[in-house]
């Protein structure tokens, strides 16, 4: 019977050891102790997250993750990137394989409730569109009845396109392939008439096409796609850090602080700038971070305008104007809450 007793004790210890979960501050402590951030990213969307020819990760989502690492660890390069497919991304976050998901993920009600996730401030306002070959001679999405459409499985895109065709009473055939690269290869080889995705991704696909000028975006935008970094429910401190990191990128742009002038800005007499950069201490401490957190973000990664123009802006291969992603005072939707 001693055997049984031993077993009972072992089971009891195991029970206590494994049930401690989601205590506030847990993620921050884990990341600090580990010494690097684990970020879930997209494996291959040019301009958002994709390794360049030297194997260095580049893109808007990658820079968002770098900003989080800069804020938390003081070093934007202390990141391990985990490329995830659309289907893998949410389970990977739920299962704690990653600390944060920066992978053009649309904020929806279901994901915030039934999936147990929280979306931080939006880092890119997108919408879903259609990319077609010019040879088809199609001018509007309303002419797409009977078309074969390439779409990524497990995305809001997949649901939107089904809704759109149902609403317009048109028939269509999907071709769903899980790997983004395989999907765009199939489209450019002519397996589908249409490729549908978020406009930013379509621009990225077109930029990597064998002959980009042969493809055209249709005018219809059939959905709202607010893309934002995602964290798990239950760790409010970590959510605050990610949320305010995105807002710090926006705030820096609003204050006119960028990676080139940030050291000069430290001497600024503007109290808003002083509070933001930690010259007047307090904000960083409230987040559980160093007071230099925002300084580190701007110094090492830049402000939102800088990362936008470097990755997806008009001077890049994607050439997407700011549009909805401009600051609120310039007619866009980007709006950081007050830093005080």
């Amino acid at each position: 019977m001693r055997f049984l007793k031993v077993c009972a004790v072992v089971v009891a210890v195991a029970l206590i050891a494994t049930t401690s979960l989601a205590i506030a501050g847990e993620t921050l402590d884990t990341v600090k102790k580990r010494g690097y951030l684990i970020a879930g990213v997209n494996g291959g969307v040019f301009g958002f997250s994709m390794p360049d020819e030297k194997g260095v990760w580049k893109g808007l989502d990658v820079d968002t993750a770098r900003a989080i690492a800069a804020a938390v660890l003081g070093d934007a390069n202390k990141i391990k990137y985990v490329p995830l497919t659309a289907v893998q991304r949410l389970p990977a976050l739920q299962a704690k394989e990653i600390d944060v998901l920066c992978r053009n993920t649309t904020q929806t009600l279901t994901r915030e409730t039934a999936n147990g996730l929280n979306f931080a401030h939006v880092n890119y306002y997108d919408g879903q569109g259609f990319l077609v070959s010019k040879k088809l001679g199609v001018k509007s999405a309303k002419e797409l009845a009977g078309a074969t459409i390439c779409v990524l499985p497990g995305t809001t895109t997949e649901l939107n396109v089904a809704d759109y065709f149902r609403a317009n009473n048109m028939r269509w055939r999907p071709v769903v392939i899980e790997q983004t690269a395989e999907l765009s290869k199939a489209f450019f080889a002519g397996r589908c008439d249409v490729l549908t995705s978020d406009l930013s991704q379509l621009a990225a696909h077109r930029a990597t096409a064998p002959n980009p000028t042969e493809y055209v975006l249709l005018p219809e935008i059939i959905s709202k796609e607010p893309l934002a970094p995602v964290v798990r429910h239950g760790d409010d401190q970590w959510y605050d850090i990610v949320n305010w990191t995105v807002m710090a990128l926006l705030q820096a742009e609003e204050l006119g602080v960028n990676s080139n002038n940030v050291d000069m800005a430290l001497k600024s007499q503007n109290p808003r700038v002083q509070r933001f950069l930690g010259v007047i201490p307090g904000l960083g401490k409230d987040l559980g971070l160093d007071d230099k957190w925002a300084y580190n973000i701007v110094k090492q990664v830049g402000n939102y305008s800088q990362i936008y123009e470097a990755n997806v802006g008009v001077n890049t291969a994607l050439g997407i104007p700011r549009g909805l992603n401009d600051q609120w005072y310039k007619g866009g939707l980007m709006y950081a809450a007050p830093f005080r």
Partner: protein
Amino acid sequence: MPPPGGTYEKIFAFGSSGLLSQSLTVAQEGTDSPEITASAKIPFWYDPNKRAIIYQVVVLGMVGLVAYYLFTNTLANLERQNIATGFGFFSKQASFEISESPIPYSAADTYARALLVGVLNTIKVSFIGIVVTVLLGTFIGIARLSSNWLVAKLSAVYIEVMQDIPVLLQLVFWYAVFYESFPPPRQALGPIRGVYLSNRGMVFAVPQMHPVYGYMALVFVVGCLAVWVLRRWAKKRQEKTGQSFPLFLVSLAILLLLPLATWLVGGAPLKMNVPRLVGFNFEGGTTLSPEFAALLLGLVLYTAAFVAEIVRAGIQAVSRGQVEAAMSLGLRPGKVLRLVILPQALRVIIPPLTSQMLNLIKNSTLAIAIGFPDFVSVANTTINQTGQAIEGVGMIMVVYLFFSLSTSAVMNWYNKKVALVER
């Protein structure tokens, strides 16, 4: 002379099943030997029989405890993260389209129906795949043993090449071949009237629905039953009288002529559902999609190479003397193969063949790489749209376990049937 206290049988029982039967023997004998009866009063923890039961109960209890712990712990954690649980999503609207389905399906249907479509697609590709694989594999396996040098070498090359290239690579290759090498639908190739080849797949004309086809199917089933009865009768008659019956020809006639007669009686409908190019794509007819074709081709070519080796091994396992003996009895080569070689070879072939069939079913999950909506593909989409990964993965496990166990059950039954009957 029987030993004291029992018969020879008891001694044997003692010898064969060890300590366990000792106490049974003791209990039966009771009064015969007082010393042994006394030992029956020993405390139960020294009784190996009862102790064995206690150990098993303890182990079972611990496994149950661990399972219970994992289950409740998972539930508690999911609840803490506010993640939904249970199968309530079955009755919710799926809202996503599926590219091909044997039953009518639209985005307005439920998740349960979407998953059923996935199951049916997996069954479709697995069933057709297994039938074609066994036929092709048997053919190549026999060809490998051919006395024709070229035929034997060609099959050897086929087997070596196909076995050694990973099946995922083969699938992606065939898929790329289909969509890269065929023209877009507006320039589709039309080798025969009513058949069009394009990068959307092969579209071909099918007979327009007519009630006669239903009756033809019914008659065909009746024909199959008739053939089965006829076969039994012919076998019995041959065993009794030695007279043989032209079974093959008669069966063929029954299976072909009966449906044909039904068709003629039903007014011989000839109207075909011919595909036409409308807008982007063909309407009407039936489509063999590049995804399905690539998946089927990849799985069949890969698995057939293994089956061919199994068939070759099975045939070579039959000793040469058997063939020589059969030939010296004056049997024709066809009958030697059918009556002497195959019944013996099958005993060697069936078990590894079953394992290859299971491999094919499981490899069909690679469909996800080339966009064929098999069960895993639909379940994955469901997982992602509902966020309920545990339920989804659980379903995938149950469904494939069911497929594999049913296949094994059928093959084990067949294996018993062909097994050597020892007399």
